[in-house]
């Protein structure tokens, strides 16, 4: 009876065994990495806006407070995107003939709001409330990063659930005094001591139940 396979098939079979294991492990690794990549989270990717608004310029250079535009940050579930009228408070006087700002003026004339692309957009099954985070001493910079250094707006963090839980598990590692909420440069001297104190003072609980965010 003639042989069906060449002797080299033996080597090939052994290599295949390790190859299969290698292939399986690498596939898992690729999937896990893709899942956390900027491609999936859109972290650090600049979103196209109808007008190239610069947070850097308006806050750092002009010294405008976050709350001037995001008026409901302290009181509402949604921090709020300003209406065109807020822009026009200043821009009817300055840069009022800049072609770059034409969409703003057009919006003001027609009453049609500007379609800003929302950068920090959580899935609809997350019932996120902005105001409670401010009330419990979470600073802007903690979630949004150095917005005052962003000429164009981008996500500073992944916004994945594991990121949310990092703070929900151990709020004492992230909270700050309410007076420093809007201070982009503040850093605690001793977060461990301060965090423990603030958790006590502001009655901050580690909210880990599913239904806190998913109803």
């Amino acid at each position, binding site marked *: *009876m003639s042989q*069906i*396979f060449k002797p080299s*098939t*033996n080597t090939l*079979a052994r290599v295949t065994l390790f190859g299969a294991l290698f292939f399986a492990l690498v596939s898992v690794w690729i999937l*896990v990495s893709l*899942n*956390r990549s900027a491609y999936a989270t859109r972290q650090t990717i600049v979103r196209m806006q109808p007008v190239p608004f610069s947070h850097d310029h308006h806050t750092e250079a002009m010294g405008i407070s976050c709350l001037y535009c995001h008026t409901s940050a302290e009181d509402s579930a949604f921090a709020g995107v300003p209406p065109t009228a807020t822009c026009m408070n200043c821009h009817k006087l300055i840069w009022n003939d800049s072609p770059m700002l034409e969409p703003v003026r057009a919006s003001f004339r027609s009453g049609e709001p500007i379609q800003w692309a929302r950068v920090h957009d959580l899935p609809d099954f997350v019932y996120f409330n902005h105001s409670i985070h401010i009330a419990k001493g979470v600073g802007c910079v903690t979630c949004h990063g150095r917005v005052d250094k962003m000429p164009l707006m981008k996500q500073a963090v*992944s916004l*994945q*659930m*594991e990121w949310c*839980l990092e703070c929900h598990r151990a709020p004492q590692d992230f909270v700050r005094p309410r007076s420093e909420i809007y201070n982009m440069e503040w850093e605690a001297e001793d977060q461990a001591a301060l965090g423990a104190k603030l958790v006590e003072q502001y009655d901050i609980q580690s909210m880990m139940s599913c239904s806190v965010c998913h109803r």
Partner: protein
Amino acid sequence: MKASEGIETSGRKPSRPPVVAPGHSPGSVTDQITAVVLDRAPRWWWVAFGISFALVMLLLRALTKLLFEGTGIWGLNIPVGWGFAIINFVWWIGIGHAGTLISAILLLARQEWRTSINRFAEAMTLFAVACAGIFPLIHVGRPWLAYWLLPYPNTMDLWPQFRSPLVWDVFAVSTYATVSLLFWYVGLIPDMATLRDRAEGKFAKVAYGFLSMGWRGSATHWHNYETAYLLLAGLATPLVVSVHTVVSFDFAVGQLPGWHATIFPPYFVAGAIFAGFAMVITLAIPLRAAFGLKDFITTRHLQNMGKILLATGLIVAYGYLVEIFMAWYSGNWYEQFMILNRIQGPYQKQWMALLLCNVLAPQLLWFRRVRSSPVLLFMVAMFVNVGMWLERFVIVVTSLHRDFLPSSWGMYSGTFWDWATFIGTIGLFLALLFLFIRFLPMISIFEMKTIVPKQVPNTAEEAPE
């Protein structure tokens, strides 16, 4: 010469029929079993496979509709939130159990008669688990996210709820499928080599050669093989008990009258073996007739399987009795209502049919004439197949449809798509089985050869194990 002479060394029961009909030699065993695979397929095979394949298409149609429209196409609604999906899952998983019992426990208990039926019983286990596995995946509503059931490092920083029996199910069933597959495949390797050596076509030679993994039948090969096979049998043995115990926890851990009972694990395990042997009988009787394998699957096999069916059937009947007793003994108003509602309520017909199929029909097996008659045995097995499905239907639906508040009572029945999915999985099961008998030896050739020499006169030496 009496057929039994030469096998029974003890001589206590000279009337016991043989495991293999007399007159066979190792060569004739190989010829007859490989012929099923290597000869041209008979016409009836094409017809039977065609019908099963059409049912597979029905399954795909039903699943496609489900993917596009969601579980609303089924009859599920509050208060009955668990319906055909869990009924069919438990039914199929239960059927698989006979294969594991035959391959593992009967092997370790040195029951030689298992040799003729273990191969296709194991195949049946695999195909039944494949059918069972479909239901948990599709019932989650968004099947493309079914991998969430597995614990893996994810961006949600979440683990599955390890305290839930539904998660235990995932582990139990996947372990079961893996071990069954390995056990079946390892057992096939020497026979694949036989097929490789006997095949005529180039493609068949390469395919069987590939699958036999270079088996040459050397003493080292046999030694490794025996060790691996025994180890796998040891691994599979606890699975006979564990898998259906975990499945029963799906119910028993819930605090619903009719489900929350300690009898559930043993009662489910017995039910699984009961259902499984019924299915083995259902398949074995037509197959031995169609392929002329009555020499290998003899009346002795049918009788033994009939006895197991009767024994496990009695345990199941005891389970039904204990359910009723415990409802009375508990003094719990809701438990008692549930049992009375099961007996007298709107699902009375299903309950009566269940008793007829699972309790009354198997009593016929007390008679040797019934056990040794293929036709009657087949009919009893069919009753049990139906009865075990009804049992799961009654357990699931009667507990759910009338819960604690009469204002939220309701009725449940399957829709066309429920039935299409269920019948579709039967088609899938049969289609896989027909492919199996066509392409792989349905009886273990080399194991049969180890029991044949004892049949031949003047062979005093026992074949080595």
